[in-house]
């Protein structure tokens, strides 16, 4: 019994140790955001200090912060809505009326994710410039939609596959049209799945950095670009950087915590249950 008890202790200790080590950089950033700039770089690091909100105030005063944050919100939501509008009908058709080409189409869609962004950076950059979409929110919305579309289709497809076919059959017998069937029966049934898909799409769009860094300068730049601007030497204010970073990741972090269960199913297209 004593042996089992000590084993239990060891597991608890290890589990928490690993959690704290992995979480530590985020925690450290969070703590630093409440320090003064002087305290933030103090040697040795201060564990006890008078917390201050001055960094958050300073970030608020830099009105541009909200410009970036607003861009992040609009672009993530826009790309997610657009991807869902394209993906739901496609996933519906493929899940309930599969043909011999369905599996091939799905795999082909996923394979477009294999196209490395750098491989097409120059053409996309030039296309965006020629069409006036460079440094616009619409430009990023279009690109994020296309980047996420394959994963969104796959996820919704795998959620639709789990809806019992009988329910739809019964409904169709009653004379429901395709539209009625989709909106009144299928969508309510698979709402949790669609919600977690939307969540993942928002997370991926919110955190995407390659295209946002390369296609935006100021007007449409989201938080990923804002934060990256702190990497220049004159931007080196750790406490303010920490405050800005905390504000940049907090919404997504909380989203992630709340949706971790559903995310797994989505992320692996239901291959891991």
């Amino acid at each position: 019994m004593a042996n089992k008890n000590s084993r239990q202790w060891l597991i608890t200790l290890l589990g928490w140790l690993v959690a704290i080590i992995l979480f530590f950089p985020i925690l450290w950033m969070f703590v630093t955001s409440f320090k003064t700039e002087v305290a933030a770089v103090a040697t040795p690091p201060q564990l006890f200090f008078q917390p201050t909100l001055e960094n958050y105030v300073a970030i608020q005063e830099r009105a541009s912060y909200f410009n970036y944050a607003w861009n992040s919100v609009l672009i993530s939501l826009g790309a997610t809505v657009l991807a869902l509008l394209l993906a739901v009908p496609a996933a519906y058709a493929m899940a309930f009326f599969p043909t011999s080409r369905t599996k091939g189409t799905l795999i082909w869609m996923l394979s477009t994710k294999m196209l490395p962004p750098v491989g097409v950076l120059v053409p996309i950059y030039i296309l965006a410039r020629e069409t006036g979409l460079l440094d616009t929110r619409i430009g990023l919305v279009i690109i994020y939609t296309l980047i996420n579309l394959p994963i969104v289709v796959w996820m919704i497809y795998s959620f639709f596959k789990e809806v019992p076919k009988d329910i739809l059959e019964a409904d169709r017998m009653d004379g429901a049209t395709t539209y009625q069937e989709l909106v009144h029966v299928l969508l309510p049934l698979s709402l949790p799945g669609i919600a977690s898909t939307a969540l993942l799409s928002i997370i991926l769009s919110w955190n995407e950095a390659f295209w946002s860094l390369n296609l935006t300068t100021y007007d449409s730049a989201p938080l990923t670009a804002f934060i990256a601007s702190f990497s220049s030497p004159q931007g080196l204010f750790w406490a303010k950087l920490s405050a800005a970073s905390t504000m940049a990741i907090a919404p997504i972090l909380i989203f992630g915590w709340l949706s971790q269960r559903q995310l797994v199913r989505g992320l692996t297209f239901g291959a891991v249950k």
Partner: protein
Amino acid sequence: MTSSVATTQHSPPPSKKRSRKQIPTLALVAPSVIVLLLWMIVPLVMAIWFSLQRYNLLIPENREFVGLGNFVFILTDPALWTSIGITLILVASVLLITIGLGTLLAVLYNQDFFGRGIARVLAISPFFVMPTVSALIWKNMLMHPVNGLFAQITRGLGLGAIDWFADLPLLSIIIIVSWEWLPFALLILLTAIQSLDTDQLEAARMDGARPLALFRFVVLPHLSRAIAVVAMIETIFFLTIFAEIFVTTGGGPGLATTNLAYYIYLKALLEFDVGGASAGGLIAVVLANLVAIFLVRSVARNLDT
């Protein structure tokens, strides 16, 4: 046990009743297929077209057809091969670290212990942090040679400070990317482990299997599919790591952290060499496909479609 057989859903054969729906079905799939097709083909064709020209945005009037000149130039540039090597090292080592550690941690978090739910939420958090932020935290607050926490700790121990990005640049990037992606591997593998049939484990334990043997012969085979999925998704992302390098080392010192993505970025947006960058981009497409084809094939076979 028999009940599961009785309730198994047999999907009705798709044909027959479909005639009424055939046109809507095609129309429903078409928008997604068309936009993805355009997204794939238009830039690729453009890249091929540009790659055959001398085309520098700084001297646009000097534009002319040079055939395979850009490819010859790029393929004989030692920096390209260095960057391909760095790309492969980066992908392989982070895959190894995240999947290896992820498996061990999944076993750990599969045990019941006090506060496990909270500990797990904390452990998977790095996955949700945007790459630019995590790169900045590591660069400035942890790995900074003067004020970074690591330096302060090692100096406190009398070991002196390590200038991470100057002395161990590639390792630094590997650590940062591993930190970001270990939670992802942990999350997926933990879910997979939880679906393991406990009866089977119990039976093996009754037969006298030691924990190590249980892990090797029961748990690991059960995880193989999840590991394949993790490897595939991670590879897609690792081949194109950009933000972490952009924010921390800028590809340096020298070329020490210039992966293929960053090499093309340097060509395109710093040297404005559209022709050369396009040729490099096409090489990246080929490389990604070589790596990916094999991965997708093996995973797609396992997917339930």
